[in-house]
């Protein structure tokens, strides 16, 4: 039995990807089996693998380690596979082969990337996630989704190219392709850091998340929200733990998407901004780099995939039934979709980190680690950001879709499979919050931590309930910004407006310059041409027809001159 274990072929990643490819040609009826059974098998396979390095293969003259199982990679692979099961269940009713295939291949690629023991294997799976995931955006089958998908793909491929060039430089300088701690000072360190930073949605590199994720299908967005960004967080935790710069980057990441989330109208885009903000917490944890902080980042990624997935699922259900997730158009849906409402609220309370919900037991580890290492500015930023999370994900998303003023929609409750997926995810969110021990047991480092101290519970409740009180005060007094239609310009304005504008302005200027140059030349040349034409043209001196008499006169004169010269 254990003989084939540890070979590259016995990889949970390849299992998921192969299942995706098989699904492409199997009848619709067996899709359910693939979508649900394969993740279960993959999870069993992952946990059957003993800790250590497996799956060594030789490729292009490199010795690759395709399966590295340790505390850090195992928790990430575990949650990715759980995520693929939940999204499979959530999308069971979808009759679109492209989405099912893309979901499984994408999940497999992400699992393969976190299990990669070297940079070349990482690069291969890194690109595979980019290429498989774009089909989930194109699956919306609108012109807009097509354009957005192309933009998404370009940015993902740029990240892959940076990783590749960084790896080549790193290999040339050090002779190693091992994917262990890198740091910024090694050869190629900055390029690889930037590659990870694009996928982790660092500030100013972030906008592909908010641009692309909300344009996917109701189910596709849930799938997208799980893998790419958390794969980048894993890669940062593996390669750049303890890099001080990450504390600053992460703190900025927690803060600035909040402002956008508050004024954004598309609720799935609000969640995309909120996703960005949650990544910031993890990035700060990685920047601090202590065992507690890294445990916090890992635990928070685990909990985040579940509650963020749950929130995207509830908004996906709304989009599926109502046809829009614009806050300005929604309201009062709790009457028609009571179960979805409850699940959404569970997701909201988890992300807001209410005690007994998953966010509480994971986010607090990062804050505790920041306090332990005396990063008081970062700690304060995270505290402010925590109050912000309560607004956009805790209040805004459920309140404006399910409550607020009744928009009059009377729709059916979400399909049964969607409800089942949301119910399981909600149960996991509460389960982790109430009984975090099993999650803590699979964290990469062995650090004792207990979230449920009196001070912590009271302080967190104070923070959240007083923030909620602020919402009530602002909302009742009319100071809360109303939900209105519109689009908010973000850093994508640089490459969607400023850059094309600059290019066309430069082109226009060049054309004007060319016209001017041609003008000058034409005038100059025109003068010369006129002079030449005056002498040699059809009416020029040289082309004049002369009478025979004049010709005879000239000949006589020339002969006379000749005679005179000769004698």
């Amino acid at each position, binding site marked *: 039995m254990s003989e084939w274990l540890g070979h590259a072929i016995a990889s949970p990643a390849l299992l998921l990807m192969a299942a995706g490819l098989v699904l492409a040609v199997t009848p619709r009826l067996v899709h359910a089996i693939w979508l649900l059974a394969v993740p279960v098998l993959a999870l069993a396979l992952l946990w059957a693998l003993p800790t250590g390095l497996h799956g060594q293969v030789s490729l292009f003259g490199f010795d690759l380690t395709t399966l590295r199982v340790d505390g850090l990679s195992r928790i990430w692979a575990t949650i990715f596979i759980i995520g693929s099961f939940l999204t499979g269940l959530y999308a069971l009713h979808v009759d679109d082969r492209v989405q099912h295939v893309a979901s499984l291949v994408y999940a497999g690629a992400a699992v393969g990337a976190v299990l990669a023991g070297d940079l070349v294997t990482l690069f291969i799976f890194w690109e595979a996630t980019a290429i498989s995931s774009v089909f989930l955006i194109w699956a919306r089958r*609108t*012109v*807009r989704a097509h354009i*957005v998908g192309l933009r998404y793909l370009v940015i993902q491929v740029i990240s892959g190219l940076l990783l590749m060039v960084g790896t080549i430089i790193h290999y040339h300088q050090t002779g190693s392709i091992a994917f262990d701690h890198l740091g910024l000072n090694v050869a190629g360190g900055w390029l690889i850091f930037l590659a990870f930073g694009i996928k982790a949605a660092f500030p100013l590199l972030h906008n592909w998340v908010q641009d692309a994720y909300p344009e996917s299908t109701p189910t596709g967005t849930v799938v997208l929200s799980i893998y790419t960004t958390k794969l980048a967080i894993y890669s940062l935790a593996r390669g750049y733990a303890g890099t001080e710069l990450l504390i600053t980057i992460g703190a900025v990441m927690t803060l600035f998407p*909040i*402002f*956008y989330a*508050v*004024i954004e109208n598309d609720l799935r885009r609000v969640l995309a901004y909120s996703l960005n903000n949650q990544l910031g917490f993890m990035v700060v944890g990685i920047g601090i780099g202590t065992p507690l902080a890294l445990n916090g980042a890992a635990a928070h990624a685990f909990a985040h995939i579940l509650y963020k997935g749950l929130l995207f699922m509830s908004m996906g259900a709304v989009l599926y*039934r*109502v*046809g829009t997730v614009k806050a300005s158009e929604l309201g*009062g849906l709790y*009457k028609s979709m009571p179960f979805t409402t409850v699940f959404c609220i569970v997701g909201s309370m988890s992300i807001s980190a209410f005690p007994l919900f998953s966010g509480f037991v994971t986010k607090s580890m990062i804050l505790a680690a920041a*306090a*332990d290492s*005396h990063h*008081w500015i970062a*700690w304060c930023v995270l*505290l*402010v950001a925590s*109050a*912000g999370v*309560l*607004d956009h994900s805790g209040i805004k998303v459920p309140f404006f879709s399910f409550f607020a003023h*009744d*928009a009059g*929609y*009377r*729709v059916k409750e979400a399909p049964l499979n969607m409800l089942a997926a949301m119910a399981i995810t909600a149960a996991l969110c509460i389960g982790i919050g109430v009984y975090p021990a099993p999650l803590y047991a699979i964290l990469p480092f062995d650090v004792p931590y207990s979230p449920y*101290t*009196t*001070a912590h519970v*009271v*302080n*967190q*409740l*104070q*923070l*959240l*309930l*007083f*923030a*909620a*009180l*602020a*919402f*009530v005060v*602002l909302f009742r007094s009319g*100071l*809360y*910004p109303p939900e*209105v*239609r*519109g*689009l*908010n*310009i*973000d850093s994508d304005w640089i490459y969607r*407006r400023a850059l094309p504008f600059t290019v066309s302005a430069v082109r226009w200027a060049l054309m004007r310059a060319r016209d001017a140059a041609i003008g000058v030349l034409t005038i100059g040349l025109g003068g010369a041409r006129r002079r030449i034409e005056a002498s040699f043209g059809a009416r020029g001196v040289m082309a004049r027809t002369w009478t025979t008499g004049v010709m005879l006169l000239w000949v006589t004169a020339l002969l006379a001159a000749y005679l005179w010269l000769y004698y």
Partner: protein
Amino acid sequence: MSRRTRDIGLFERPAVIRTLIAILGLSCAGLLVSEFFYAKHPHFGFDGWFGFYPLAGFAAYCFIVLSAKALRPVLRRSENYYGEADPDEADLEESMGREHEHE
């Protein structure tokens, strides 16, 4: 999907809304009083001050929402600003009207 006449739901009754707000208010009051009854473990000093967390929650929330509100006129454009809005999704007439406003 259908849009029918509105019926007054549970969470639209003024009495229910008032009750919910009263519960929130009482919880907040209770949490403020509880400041006297537990042992604090401040990490930095300032986080041990009386009412630090309630004040932080209230003030941070107001700061975020009000500054975002102030940013909205600067950042907001029509839904078809980039010319990519789906015709059935965006309110194109409104968009076209507002497109001029921002140029």
